[in-house]
């Protein structure tokens, strides 16, 4: 059957703001929003959008579908009525059509030192028990799609807020038994733009396509930061 897809078109060189443009696409039970965008690109090759894997692992096809952050490849037209609206991810600057500038997101990710910090140079394998793995495993499933940043009203109000994915990543490494870098990460988390920028809206966890539950990670981070605060009072 045929469905109407309204796409927010934007060319920064000629447009002052995004304008909706309607396209007709053929849809069956397995047509994803990404498939629909590829159909539209056949009609209008100037449509700009990012995609790669088509299987919810590369994290590049994030768009707003009817105002909700979604992965285009994991969202199906069958779940929408005859018409739907697709626009660029909220809270990011639009480069063209559905392509946003992800640089602020990447900068925040890098700020929390998201890698194992450990002076141990031994060549022996670092073994972990299933219990040690379970502490952080869920938080390691993030694919950096940025949907949680589009969902987060606090990131929308304050782009300096580290945001759900970065804090989750910090928490992922802080909880890893092989890591010794918590002291280096805590100052970022302790600041007003760290865990304390969150007001526990929880929409980040609702939109996360990998069920990472960043809101839980941020709140674990608040407990860790509060503990760090108390310890700091007893230090000279």
């Amino acid at each position, binding site marked *: 059957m045929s469905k109407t897809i309204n796409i927010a078109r934007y060319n920064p060189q000629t447009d002052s703001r995004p304008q909706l443009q309607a396209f007709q696409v053929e849809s069956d039970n397995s047509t994803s929003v990404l498939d629909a965008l590829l159909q539209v690109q056949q009609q209008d090759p100037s449509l700009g959008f990012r995609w790669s894997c088509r299987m919810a692992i590369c994290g590049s096809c994030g768009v707003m579908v009817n105002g909700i952050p979604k992965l285009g490849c994991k969202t199906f037209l069958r779940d929408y009525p005859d018409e739907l609206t697709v626009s660029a991810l909220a809270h990011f600057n639009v480069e063209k059509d559905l392509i946003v500038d992800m640089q602020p997101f990447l*900068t*925040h990710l*890098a*700020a929390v030192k998201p890698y194992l910090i450990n002076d141990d140079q031994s060549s022996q394998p670092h073994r972990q028990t299933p219990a040690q793995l379970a502490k952080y495993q869920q938080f390691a499933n993030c694919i950096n799609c940025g949907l949680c940043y589009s969902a987060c*009203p606090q990131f929308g*109000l304050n782009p*300096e807020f580290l945001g759900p994915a970065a804090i989750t990543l910090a928490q992922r490494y802080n909880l890893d038994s092989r890591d010794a870098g918590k002291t280096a990460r805590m*100052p*970022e988390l*302790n*600041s*007003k*733009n*760290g865990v*304390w920028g969150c*007001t526990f809206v929880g929409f980040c966890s609702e939109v996360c396509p990998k069920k990472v539950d960043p809101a839980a990670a941020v709140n674990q981070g*608040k407990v860790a*930061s*509060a503990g760090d*605060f*108390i310890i*700091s009072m007893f230090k000279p």
Partner: protein
Amino acid sequence: MNNTTQPKRSDEPVWWALFSAGGVCFAVVVPGAILALALLPAFGGISADNLSYPRISALLHDALWGLAGLAFIGSVICLPLFHAAHRIHHGLHDLKLGGGLLSKVLCYGSAAALSLLAIYLVS
């Protein structure tokens, strides 16, 4: 973001701790107090004599050397006040009306002032 300088530590853990404690009191102690002091006497679940002035006064001022009264006021009035102040402070930030030092002083200041008033009134 500059990685060479460390950002300033936020004082939010203090307010968050009061907010959390107040939230627990709001959810557990306040409904219990409403049940015991308002609903049960009104619907005849307990005798109104249980709320007589000498009895309540003794509970507030004398039980556990006055600590019971202080704990009651703290958990039914003071901590919930700080919980509410925290919500209002962050709500103002969400509405782009504040969230800065002024709203912080006003919100937590009024919570502190009303808490002291409550403690003064029962002491």
